[in-house]
């Protein structure tokens, strides 16, 4: 498993403690929504990097008022076909103006990177021998977009209008 961010492999500085019984006092961590709700005050006091994981059945409204505390929001894909996190990503970016890292975790496939990137993901925890090559393939496959989305890419409808 490697962490691909903005097209390069980076070191993951956050320990995923979302399934752990204890939340460690120090070090960068990724917590669950339940942990956040239970230890919110203590977690805010920590100075180390903090991220949160949303399961696919947890809507972004649950944390919408607290986004300033998270450097990373990880959205889980329990299976590649569970597409709820695509909607969550758009809401986080477009409705709640979340500016930090949006990370896809779980069953993340090469063929989905393009769609994920379009809805606002900038980081991907992916199983791959060569994640950078995978990213380059996914990013170059399709160069036409029909819909406005979180990535700000200009859709064909707008490009046609600009030409006239």
């Amino acid at each position, binding site marked *: 498993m490697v962490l691909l961010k903005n097209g390069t492999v980076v070191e993951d500085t956050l320990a995923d403690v979302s399934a752990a019984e204890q939340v460690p006092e120090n070090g960068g961590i990724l917590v669950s929504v339940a942990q956040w709700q239970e230890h919110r005050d203590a977690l805010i006091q920590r100075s180390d990097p903090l991220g949160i994981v949303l399961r696919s059945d947890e*809507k972004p409204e649950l944390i919408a008022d607290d986004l300033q505390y998270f450097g990373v929001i990880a959205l889980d894909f329990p299976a*590649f*076909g*569970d*597409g*709820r996190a*695509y*909607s969550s990503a*758009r809401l986080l970016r477009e*409705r709640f103006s979340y500016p930090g890292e949006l990370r896809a975790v779980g069953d993340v*496939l090469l*063929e*989905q990177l*393009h*769609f*994920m990137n*379009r*809805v606002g993901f900038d980081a991907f925890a992916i199983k791959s021998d060569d994640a950078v090559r995978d990213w380059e393939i996914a990013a170059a*496959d*399709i*160069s*036409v*977009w*029909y*819909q*406005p*989305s979180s990535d700000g890419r200009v859709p*064909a*409808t707008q*490009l*046609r*209008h600009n030409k006239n």
Partner: protein
Amino acid sequence: MYRYDEFDNRLVTERVEQFRRQAERRLAGELTEDQFKPLRLMNGLYLQLHAYMLRINVPYGALSAQQMRQLAHVARTYDKGYGHFTTRQNIQYNWIQLKDVPDALADLAEVEMHGIQSSGNCIRNTTSDQYAGVAKDELEDPRVYCEIIRQWSTLHPEFSFLPRKFKIAVTGAPNDRAAVKLHDIGLRMHRNEAGEAGFEVIVGGGQGRTPFVGKTIREWLAPENLLSYLEAILRVYNFDGRRDNKYKARIKILVHQVGADEFRRRVDEEWEQIKDSALKLPQEEIERINSYFAPPDYAQLEDNTELLASQRAANGEFDAWVSANVADHKVPGYAIVNISLKSLRLPPGDMTAAQMDAVADLADEYSFGELRVNHRQNLVLADVPQGDLLALWEKLAALDLATPNIGRVSDIIACPGLDYCALANARSIPIAQEINQRYQDMDRVNDIGDVTINISGCMNACGHHHVGHIGILGVDKRGKEFYQFTLGGSSDQNASLGDRTGPGFPGDEAVDAVETILNTYLKIRNEGERFLDTYRRVGMPPFKEALYGAS
């Protein structure tokens, strides 16, 4: 019709190359069939009982003559010389080999066709009225909005992994020929009190094992808000639709479980947030797309009823064909011609490559080079001068494409059934052919008049049995094919689901049961009453008694 510009062309070409790489990885063994499955499904490639099946979209059923010739070329080059038109206005090739699929897709891309989103849990081909643009009862051309939806839904990044497949249909006329109440979303254009055209939005219709007629969640929607409202519906469904059981994952189950009012509340709450976003359709964009659907260059003709009447009087077969297969056109002197794909020789919806080529030529000669596919698996030539009807009929007859049975007993919708499909429990095509065989006497057929028989080979209902006036469902009963009957279904503006008659019939008695049902109708109908109207008037008892004996 719509023509691709540089953007549409680039997307489809890139997509073919992407799939070519994926298919090469599969053929080289780098991908297992399991890993390959989601990739091929995104391009319309299924694995069926005997072979791969490739489904190609015909957007809202519109085909140019050139596209039809390319479909013939694909049938001839990569398949066994046939294609099968489906109830979603698409075409399927049932004998394609994986190694040939990238080439077939590349050939189709040359004529602006593809299989993107013809399968998978995404927004499928948007379907419409086969008489769009030429129907007398139409308010506005629905194809304009179908094309806008086609573009918006193509590779939609948020909605490509929905709980289940998602089908949208649009009609611009009060007489619904697109079955909009049986779709995940149905859009019916009508005027509000201010006289402005907009959409009634119907959600949660569908067939399958749990059929529902859709529910109206918005009486009138301004066209400029079409995409934001669709996006709100899709987002609610993407979040809230069930993902624990694929048989309960369609939007109809969600709408049924939470109720139409609660579903509407959720959609409206979401829509409030996005209705003024970049999705708002500028009038110029609607007009830009509309210009693609400008009427063809019609000649100044008059309705020549006398000539047609004398031609019909002189030729009984031509007369029967005009009665059943020709519909009124909004422009004087023109007619809409339905081409029946329900002859005795081929399964419903099937066409040979030679027929496709010939029909393309006829479209060029008589109908401005365009064709349509309808959801009852027939074709339409939408713009034929009335004075050419006789000549066209003669040529169609020579191609075995002039069966005068549109809307009649042998105009049967049938799924591929156990002859092809891995899901089926029973065969559909032989039952359809046997009914067709039994009703060859056209006087008898015309006496029975309007009746739709729909046949599905399993409860997934691809043959639309729930909404056939007479529905036939094939089931497996201890290794034997049995056929259950429903009566009173309809997919039009007064849509209804059929009622079960009772126990099913073995395969060799199924067509006798059809005859019993129709004979009962003939006995008890009032003057001028269609089968469906008779059933709605008298209900099940007389049919039940005829089928099963007095209780």
